[in-house]
């Protein structure tokens, strides 16, 4: 299991690590290309449940890994972030929004 916690990494790169770990997909399956290094930009339209196969246990694992990869956010509340766990884009926005006040301190 990846435990990357560098806060210098862009949000999308850290999120890629999390999604790869939770879904068990290869980068090629997740990002749709077999290039040497998969695209730095995630497909924001990917739906967690319908496209990536997330179920409720995976959501719990996602929350756990988000806390590890984004330690500056502290403990996350699943009920609070649940409305953002619809697409990769909505999750990315949620993380960026929550990181903004943290980085501004």
């Amino acid at each position: 299991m990846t435990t990357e916690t560098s806060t210098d990494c862009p949000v999308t790169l850290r999120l890629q690590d999390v999604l790869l770990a939770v879904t068990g997909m290869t980068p090629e399956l997740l990002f749709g290309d077999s290039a040497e290094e998969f695209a730095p930009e995630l497909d924001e339209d990917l739906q967690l449940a319908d496209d990536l196969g997330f179920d409720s246990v995976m959501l719990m694992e996602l929350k756990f890994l988000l806390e590890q990869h984004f330690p500056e956010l502290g403990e996350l509340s699943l009920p609070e972030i649940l409305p953002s766990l619809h697409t990769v884009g909505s999750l990315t926005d949620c993380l960026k929004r929550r990181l903004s006040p943290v980085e501004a301190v």
Partner: protein
Amino acid sequence: MASSLEPMTELETRRVFAHPIQARGPDGPWDAVGEAVSRHGSALVHARMDDWLPKDLADPALPDQLGPDYLRFRRMRHPTVRARFVASRLMLKHTAGAVVGEPAHSLELSYKLGGRPYLRGFEQLDISLSHTADLLVVGLTRRGWIGVDAELSDRQMVGLGTESQMCTRHEQEELERIAEEHRNSALVRLWTLKEAYSKAIGQGMRFRFTEFGFGPQDRQAREVRLPDGSPGTGKEWAFHTCVLQQRYTVSIALYDAGFGETGDGVHALRVEDELLAELIGGTAERFAE
């Protein structure tokens, strides 16, 4: 056929819950489902996904069979999710159709705020759906509310930070007393009980799983417990956990609203669409199954 994790040895459990029934396809056995609902007010029906999966997902009949769900199906990219989605909807509609006495294709599946499914026009028949791997499970009741949840019995839950995220303080203390080799299966059981309960009350994962619990070592879950382990619900709630198809742990939560076990016939289940539209609204979320 089910082999019970918690055998229905108690009279009350046997009164409330019918034995699970396996539906091997559109032929049922629907008489058994109807009898379970007549006798107990509820039924738990399970199936293998392959028994319900159409040979061709491009079948021109599929849009009619799925109804409004077809649009969501068309957008899905994950092949297993697509297959499970189709199979589960077909199974749910056939099962509910057998209970309400209507053809499966005539039923419209809708979703309440939070993603809980219901049958438009038959809201007094409460339904719950769960699927995992090759298993499909449908719970139906006309006693009140029902929630079902299924997981692979050996699904990895220990080591994912699970205990702190889903267990009350009391549950964590109890789990510590369980031998390590049995702890994962105890967590799977707790998870399915919590999911079943939160689905029954229409909350799903919006309800903090650390705020309510069950007895990890109880032979039979009797009530929801508060974080300190004290009882949090009364006799109106009943729970049961069993093993289906040798490898799935399935829990069912049932709230008896006093509607009675035998009901008043099919027509009593109908609710006018206009009334329903006023009572219920909102968009479906994706994790309520």
